């Protein structure tokens, strides 16, 4: 307990940074992921190809590699300079949006064929059909796996510890500098993550049960 109470400021500051990292990356990857999913189901073959290529490449690349690229290699390209925090948000968003895309797409697949056919019969355009008929229904079946994707994102923010972002994973560095026990410190960090993730897992189970009868 001592390690936590003596360094409460440190824990609060670092977990605050974790949540900030999470919030930024969550919003960006949600938007980008839905856009990618729309590309992947679009009638234009080139767009489908681009979407598929992106998802295939990113899903098979380790997140750490994406981080290393944006933090160490990207500056050599001399485009726009990033802070470490921005680089971490970019890396996390690029990675997570591919998973969001797959979740949305599998949600679209659960919508019965008749729905799209009926809206076409009513004369809706592709965008209208997607926006007001298919996506709203798809979102329902998509929420539980989406929660999982965001739980993974929350845990993945800790990768930023290796890249000079002062979030939860970096508490170890700060503790060992202060001469505190990193063993106990890590246990606390792990415990707090369990506390953050468990309610989300629980929420996911509830939503899954409540919404699975919808169709």
């Amino acid at each position, binding site marked *: 307990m001592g390690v936590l109470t003596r360094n409460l400021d440190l824990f609060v500051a670092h977990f605050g940074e974790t949540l900030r990292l999470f919030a930024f990356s969550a919003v960006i990857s949600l938007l980008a992921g839905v856009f990618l999913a729309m590309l992947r189901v679009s009638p234009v073959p*080139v767009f489908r190809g681009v979407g598929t290529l992106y998802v295939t490449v990113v899903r098979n690349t*380790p997140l750490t*590699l994406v981080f290393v690229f944006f933090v160490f290699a990207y500056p050599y390209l001399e485009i726009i300079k990033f802070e470490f925090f921005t680089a971490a948000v970019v890396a996390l968003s690029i990675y997570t949006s591919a998973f969001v895309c797959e979740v949305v797409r599998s949600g679209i697949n659960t919508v019965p064929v008749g729905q799209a056919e009926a809206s076409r019969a009513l004369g809706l355009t592709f965008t209208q059909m997607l926006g007001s008929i298919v996506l709203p229904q798809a979102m329902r079946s998509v929420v539980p796996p989406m929660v999982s994707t965001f739980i993974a994102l929350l845990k993945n923010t800790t990768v930023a510890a290796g890249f000079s972002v002062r979030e939860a994973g970096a508490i170890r560095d700060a503790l060992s500098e202060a001469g505190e026990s990193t063993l106990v410190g890590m246990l606390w960090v792990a415990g707090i993550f369990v506390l953050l993730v*468990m309610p989300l897992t629980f929420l996911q189970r509830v939503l899954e049960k409540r919404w699975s009868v919808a169709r």
Partner: protein
Amino acid sequence: MSSTVLFDVPGPRARVRHRLLAVVGVAAIAALVGYVVWRFIDTGQFEGRKWSWIEYKQIQISLAEALGRTLSAFAVGAVLALTFGAIFAAARLSDHRWVSAPAAVVVELFRAIPLVIMMFFFYYGLPATGIKLSAFTAVVLSLMLYNGSVLAEVFRAGINSLPKGQSEAAYALGMRKTQVMVLVLLPQALRAMMPTIISQLVVLLKDTALGFLITFEELLYWGRQIGGQLQFGRPLIPTMIVVAAIYIGLCLLLTWFANYLEKRNRRNKKVIALENKDAEMVVLTNDHQA
């Protein structure tokens, strides 16, 4: 395939529109890719000097060694995670609450803790108690605990979603609990869940790259080392391209294998279609760790 569901076969006007959109889209993408490639060329990433390291035998050997360490962490981690998963799935499925409850706690716990934190704990935390683990051991242990817990859930969902009649018939024949599980349920569940299991192994392979953070000298670590060498003009981008190509190639091989099994399953009459949606949900809600 969803794409055929969402729109009609395009008529003449729609075809023209799609072609126009395609041209605009291709132009936009080409502009973006072109800009990035120009940045690569302008900053000299394709210069001979930055790629000359490939010709050195010593560097080729060290690349092979780093790849070997990545693959051995993957292999050992995979075997341990599968074993851990099998044991804890069996424990969670047990009728005895004193067995299933602790197993459930362990599985839920290790799924909630970030892998990075586990690796830090094993590598930097444990020495305080006098236990000194090598980076390799820390990586492999963390991979086992995290992916093993996910796999335990996969196994459990696979067994739970087999049709009820399977176990009922087996009990009616007079089999005992263990026999029902080992002879009837397990072989069917394993076959049906094999593609999911392989997908989780792709995650495990990608996760070995987290070892970079605790100075485990794997593939990514090698890329960073060689990429910082002055004599080749700090070829970090070229080495990252090579490392990325290796990782993506390896993962694609595994993904391809999973897809192949899935296709074969669909044709194979021995594979029973899983009854409820639990198994599918596991596939979807499978935590995508780094």
